[in-house]
């Protein structure tokens, strides 16, 4: 599960898919997660990092993470999963 190379992620949380011109905005945590995904971090690594940094339990985070990843998949941001 790797974010495609032609997805540009700005530090402001603005995401641009240069293949089709779509753009998205992320909040701070969304941006952190997307950057970790872009850097090929595993789900376990991402969970550990977020749970340690923010006031959230593993179960709640995983639920939200699953939704978030589903949304990224829906917008075809992952490599080899698009179309």
């Amino acid at each position: 599960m790797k974010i495609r190379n032609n997805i540009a992620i700005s530090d402001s949380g603005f995401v641009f898919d240069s293949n089709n011109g779509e753009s998205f905005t992320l909040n701070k945590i969304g941006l952190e997660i997307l950057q970790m995904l872009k850097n090929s971090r595993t789900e376990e690594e991402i969970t550990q990092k977020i749970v340690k940094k923010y006031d959230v339990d593993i179960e709640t985070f995983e639920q939200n993470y699953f939704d978030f990843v589903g949304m990224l998949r829906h917008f075809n941001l992952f490599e080899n999963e698009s179309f």
Partner: protein
Amino acid sequence: MKKIQLTIGVTGLNNTDNPGPGIPVIRALRDSHDFELRIIGLAYENLEPGIYMKDLVDKTYQIPYPSIGEKDFIQRLEYINNKENLDIIIPNFDAELHTFMKSKEHLESIGIKTYLPTFKQFEERDKTNLPGYGEKYEIKVPFSKPVVSYADIDNLEKNFDYPVLVKGKFYDAYIAYNKEQVITHFNKISAKWGVPVIVQEFIRGTEVNMVALGDGEGNTIAAVPMRKQYITDKGKAWGGITIGDEELLKLTTKLIKETKWRGGMEIEMIKNAKGDYYLIEINPRIPAWVYLAVAAGQNIPEALVKLALGKKVPPFKSYEIGKMFIRYSYDMIGDIAQFEKLSMSGEL
């Protein structure tokens, strides 16, 4: 380097909410560092905004619609040429291209160059020939059928599910959800553009467009893909962004290579949810959004003029992804005296 002095005639000054490419083409030419230009506007209507844009258009002449007859049309161009000594004309309307292509040699004999597709290239990409075109060049096209009468509309349901697109031969496209709407659109379009009217399968997906330039030998000199971000009720892009769609670039290069396309073109495609590309239509001229390509690094009108002059133009190698255009409307102030001069003398 010494600049090339050129007088260029440009049509399509209708910079309205259904914009002609004339003004963006002129703007692109004015950006060139290689030309010193006198731009002659060629206008069909008195209120085409470009006529009044004096920083872009040096002088405008009214010309008759080509439908008046080739002889009168050419006579008017000859009159203009006698006064202005035109080097090149860049026609920007689909409906006038046939006349310009037919008069190519005559125009050349009086010193006016054009850079247009051949008749074969022009005809085979015609909307009414799209299914055959798709088959010949192995590109997916939506199922479509030319319609010339109500009887044809009665037979439509054998071939189509609704919704369908109802399109004019040159311009206009409307979506129809039932037979009654097809009839309404058919009446409207045929009254304006004649028959056939084309009924086309509606492909769901994202519209992606390409502006390109072929050198007539199979080489793609320029190609910039764009996705519309904001679309008017006439289906025109009011905002758009350059994209890095490799597949679309490959398709364009292939088409230009196989057809040996000569001149500017716009390729309109729909990319569906599976990632398949359907060719919707090919416009045989530069599109109105061409200035986006200029901003992205490919001055297509400038390259076209150089090709028309017989110069060798190396293909552009890259363009900037993520360049955007946003159109706006702007109230220019004119004077009745200008309108009077144009109406009475046909020149301004």
